[in-house]
């Protein structure tokens, strides 16, 4: 196991109750865009929950609210029995960009939280433990720009973990890494989680990552951001990325996000006006299966066809799902 004692959970439960968050629109201050439309979510102590969803579904907004960096327009957020009103060292946050302080060495970056809380004297020994935990003791005195992306992200993790947060919020922390580093880092985050049993909330674009790592997966959809469905992953860890159960879950999530397989994706670039979902964009769960789409749509699988239907989708904003289908999201 790890240097940390793998005792009981350090984590604490998290409840998000009917949270609404609106932002003023960039072009017109009187128009408000709804980023989160009544999100309710509950995470048990020590649980690892992923949030997946396309860009603009409000998952980062949700994380900022939980971190206390923003406040909701309505709704409540609780850590255990304590309401969230401001940022706190209890809720660590790791961004996609490691955001290491470039003027501090690796060691000083990691101990930043201790300095900020004024407990460096008592806890100085932990800095070395965390340096070892993330395997960077040899780089303790290096400045951040000497580190690779994966190393920087490990420092960012250690910097957040040294405060022993009750909840660790991860906003696409591995998004900028290459595929191999990312898989290694997934194991590393899991190892840290298993050692500490911190409650973790992981926002990701990567469906495989979500299935590989989490106890539950929350699927969010945009405009306005809300939770489409929550899926439990019952498999034991370490999980096999090619096991039938893994692939079944993957298919299920892709279908929920309307990316079910290449054939269907091709068909979904429909000719103007004949979107299979036209008219029932309101209820996310019982859409017509994509096979029933107009077969003529297959012909439209060209660049111009896709662009055309994207433009079409943009002009009819109520049909938000067809826009989503053509957005830059990879098929998984």
């Amino acid at each position: 196991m790890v240097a940390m004692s793998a005792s009981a959970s350090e984590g604490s439960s998290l409840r998000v109750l009917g949270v609404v968050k609106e932002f003023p629109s960039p072009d017109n201050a009187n128009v408000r865009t709804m980023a989160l439309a009544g999100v309710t979510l509950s995470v048990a102590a020590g649980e690892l929950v992923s949030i997946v969803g396309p860009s603009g579904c409000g998952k980062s907004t949700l994380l900022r609210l939980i971190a206390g960096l923003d406040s909701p327009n309505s709704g409540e957020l609780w850590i255990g029995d304590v309401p969230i009103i401001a940022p706190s060292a209890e809720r660590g946050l790791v961004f996609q960009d490691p955001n290491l302080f470039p003027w501090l060495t690796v060691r000083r970056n990691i101990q930043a939280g201790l300095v900020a809380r004024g407990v460096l004297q008592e806890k100085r020994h932990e800095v070395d433990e965390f340096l070892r935990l993330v395997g960077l003791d040899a780089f303790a005195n290096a400045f951040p720009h000497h580190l690779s992306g994966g190393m920087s992200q490990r420092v960012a993790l250690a910097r957040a973990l040294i405060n022993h947060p009750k909840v660790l919020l991860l906003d696409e922390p591995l998004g900028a890494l290459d595929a191999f580093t990312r898989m290694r880092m997934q194991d590393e985050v899991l190892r840290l989680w298993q050692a500490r049993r911190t409650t973790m909330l992981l926002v990701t674009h990567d469906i495989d990552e979500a299935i590989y790592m989490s106890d539950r997966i929350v699927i969010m959809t945009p405009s306005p951001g809300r939770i489409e469905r929550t899926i439990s992953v019952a498999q034991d860890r370490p999980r096999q990325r090619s096991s039938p159960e893994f692939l079944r879950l993957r298919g299920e999530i892709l279908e929920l996000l309307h990316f079910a397989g290449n054939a269907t994706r091709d068909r979904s670039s429909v000719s103007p006006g004949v979107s299979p979902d036209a008219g029932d964009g309101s209820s996310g769960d019982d859409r017509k299966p994509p096979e029933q789409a107009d077969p003529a749509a297959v012909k439209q699988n060209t660049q111009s066809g896709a662009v055309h239907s994207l433009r079409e989708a943009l002009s009819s904003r109520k049909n938000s799902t067809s826009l989503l289908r053509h957005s830059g999201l990879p098929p998984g």
Partner: protein
Amino acid sequence: MNTSVQETNEPVQMAEEKTARAVGINSPAAPRARVRTLLAIPVAASVALVVHLFVSKNQPAPETHSYSAFLGSILLSGVLAAAVQSFSSHLRRWMRHMGPIIAAAVSLACFWEVITSGLRLLPLPYFPGPAGVLQSLIDDRALLLDSAWNSLKLLLAGYALGVAVALVTGVCIGWFNQARYWGMPLLKVVGPIPATAWIPLAMVLSPSPRFSAVGIIALAVWFPVTMLTASGISNTRASYLDVARTLGAREPYLVLRVAIPAAMPSIFIGLFMGLGAAFLTLVVAETVGVKSGLGWYVAWKQGWAEYGKVYAALVIMAAFFSTIMTLLFKVRDRVLVWQKGVIKW
């Protein structure tokens, strides 16, 4: 003329230097120096010496003696360095870098001597030759040193005061919205007035010219340092502040340990601009009010038409100011060591 040949040689030599350096960039010891590089200083010094002896034939010996000795010592150390360099890679690297520059400087002095003392192309009391300037420097060294010392005291007092005030105002304007609202208009309106324009007012207001000079220099430093500190602070990346907040940081930490370090590169630009402004204001203040320092010396000697001494003071000023500038660069290199490799220094 020999000098011009010498001078046209320089660029070629430096281009070759560059390729040599590019090839040998990874080798631990500097590669063997080219003969041309080694000979640059001795040749330039010999030419200058010959020209000088020829030009000063019909001048009184004591006026030209020190310059001959000066060129002679350059020649000697050039030859010595060329001989010793094969034993010391440090010296070799230094020579490869500095050889052409020093040779060019000696050639320039030689050219100066030719057009002044030699061909008498420039009117004499105003444009003495290098030998005359060197002699003035030596003759008046006590007063020059004293003036430089007085200038240094005044400069440091004004610069330190200006920077101290500017850092406080800059951080306040950059961080607090209230301070920004009230401070920014003041900064924008009062700041651009050249500090020297306040001299008449300062003379009326202050008890001693020294005191007012410190205030004027501080004002000249205050504006750029405040401006760039405020802009550096307010442009701190929001994500650094967000990260610090989630690490449990309160406002003092956010200001002192996030915003100020993040603003340091910008603050140093302000410090450099402020130093330039301080030099200018110092010399003007000494010329019109303060009765000591290098600025005063220049004005004083000009009044006596001792132009050799005016140039000598300029030489001292150049050495004095560039040394202070270099020191500030060294401080920056220490403080911003984390930027090394990120930006070009």
